[in-house]
């Protein structure tokens, strides 16, 4: 049997185990990669590979950035920083039609700037903003859709676990990826706001205006954003200037968040313990995904499939944007059924070299992949953000959330198109930093 055929069979078995056995994504990649390597080379080589890749991935300095940024997100999540952010945004925008939803996006944008995960962002804002929107008689369609999609800003705006994973897997500078995500996240947020505007124009009962706030109150409420802004400036600014490595930025962020929240007593022992427990759980999951992808990637490498796909695509006689559209479509469809981060690490060994063979800028390409990956978190039937919100508000029907998300998906797609037409939006800040 030719090596290529072995590789293709390996991919088919991988998908079968994923869907029919329901085995965790990271384990599946590791186990199928191990068996494939065993078949193609030898058992001794395959088991040596597994042991070595687990050890070297777990002990790599580059990856220590993951638990630190996840910890930072959970501390912010458990410490009430989000309440204060939302309160400020609410004072400024609450009296508009759909204002509470717009305030949610605004608070999302700021919270995303200190939190690395989309689920944490969605869960945080869901806890804070959902009760408010329900109080002011917002339609569930608008409120749930806002929370679910607003969470995606968490992965596009730095810091971001997705960007870290892409950076580590493709050996791109995490700092540049972080900087590249800032403007797209702002544009994406603006498009979400626009979507809310349009929805409320068509159907004013969806988002009735809230009470007005005096100008003095508005100004006074600005203190609520101070801690988040300082953490963001310290972490991302420190990276931009070159004071810190990404790992150090994460540690400094955690340390500073401690300084801010411990004296206020807003965290407490239970909050701290649950932050640590959740951090271990999430970062362990991410590590297993990365390790599994590395092992599976070695199997693909030894069968030479990755080299072939890239060569094949580069040799096609169509515009590279047609191929890009095709890749994005695969991510959209895959993102519907497989957890978005899992799908990303699964496909990067194939699609990243492909993008490079097509001559795309690596940072830009990575940001585009991040955008389309993060859409997977809000597309049914497997969309983690949807279930986060469903868990917070069991009374809202899944079909309602699915419907509301579809409005916002249009905004995501428009944003991706804008970034494809104007790649400078992604590249301007990373290039300035150099």
């Amino acid at each position: 049997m030719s090596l290529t055929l072995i590789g293709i069979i390996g991919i088919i078995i991988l998908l079968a185990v994923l869907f029919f056995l329901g085995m965790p994504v990271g384990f599946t990649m590791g186990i199928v990669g191990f068996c494939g390597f065993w078949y193609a080379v030898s058992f001794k080589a395959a088991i040596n590979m597994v042991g070595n890749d687990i050890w070297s991935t777990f002990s790599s300095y580059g990856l220590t950035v993951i638990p630190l940024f996840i910890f930072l997100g959970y501390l912010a999540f458990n410490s009430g920083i989000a309440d204060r952010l939302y309160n400020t945004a609410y004072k400024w925008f609450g009296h508009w039609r759909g204002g509470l939803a717009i305030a949610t996006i605004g608070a999302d944008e700021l919270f995303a700037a200190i939190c690395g995960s989309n689920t944490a962002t969605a869960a945080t804002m869901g806890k804070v903003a959902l009760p408010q929107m329900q109080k002011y008689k917002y339609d569930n369609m608008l409120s749930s859709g806002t929370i679910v999609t607003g969470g995606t800003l968490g992965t596009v705006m730095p810091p971001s676990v997705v960007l870290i994973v892409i950076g580590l897997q493709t050996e791109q500078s995490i700092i540049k990826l972080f900087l590249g995500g800032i403007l797209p996240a702002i544009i994406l947020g603006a498009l979400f706001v626009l979507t809310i505007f349009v929805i409320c124009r068509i159907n004013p009962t969806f988002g009735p205006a809230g009470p007005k706030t005096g100008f003095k109150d508005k100004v006074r409420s600005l203190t609520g954003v101070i801690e988040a802004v300082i953490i963001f400036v310290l972490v991302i600014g420190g990276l931009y200037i070159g004071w810190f490595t990404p790992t150090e930025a994460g540690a400094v962020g955690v340390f500073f968040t401690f300084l801010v929240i411990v004296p206020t007593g807003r965290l407490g022992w239970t909050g701290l313990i649950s932050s640590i427990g959740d951090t271990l759980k999430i970062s362990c999951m991410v590590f297993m995904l990365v390790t599994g992808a590395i092992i599976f990637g070695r199997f693909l490498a030894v069968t030479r499939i990755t080299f072939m796909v890239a060569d094949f695509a580069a040799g096609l006689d169509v515009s590279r944007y047609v191929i890009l559209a095709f890749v994005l479509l695969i991510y959209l469809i895959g993102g519907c059924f497989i957890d978005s981060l899992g799908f990303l690490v699964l496909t990067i060994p194939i699609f990243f070299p492909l993008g490079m063979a097509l001559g795309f800028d690596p940072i830009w390409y990575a940001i585009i992949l991040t955008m389309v990956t993060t859409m997977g978190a809000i597309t049914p039937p497997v969309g983690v953000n949807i279930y986060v919100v469903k868990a917070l508000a069991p009374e809202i029907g899944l079909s309602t959330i699915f419907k509301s998300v579809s409005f916002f998906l249009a905004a995501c797609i428009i944003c991706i198109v804008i970034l494809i037409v104007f790649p400078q939006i992604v590249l301007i800040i990373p290039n300035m930093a150099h």
Partner: protein
Amino acid sequence: MAFLESFCKFINQFFMWIAGFFLSAMIVLTCANIFFRLIWGPIRGTYELMGYFGAIVTALALGYTQIKKGHISVDILVLRFSAKTQRVLQSINSLICMIFFGMAALQIAKYANILQETGEVTETLLIIYYPFTYGAALGCAALSLVFFTELLNALFKTGEEEQ
């Protein structure tokens, strides 16, 4: 079996505490390094120590994460099967994963043994680091143990017992 399950829970809870301790140590070490770098000079070996601490954090959290069902999977199709089918699939899953991580644990321990015997040391501090490698092996072994209890549960526990 109840004993095995509570033993497994206890071990992994205990490992999770150690992992949490090393996570905190990573933050303290990094911040201390930045602080000393500003005033007189960096703490030598920070980067390599961080890598080894991180290995302990992840490895010792493996079993805990599995107990809490933290590893993501694609269950969209599986959830449509009958309860009985799901149990069969669950036992196949647990068996495969138990064997895989058991072998991984052995292999990593073997590697740690090579490091110990060949006298390999770290690049900057020139200290031994194989104890961390044994730690990673221990984490995989604990994960394998979790799958073993899950396998027994899927095979022998009846519906009533679960409630």
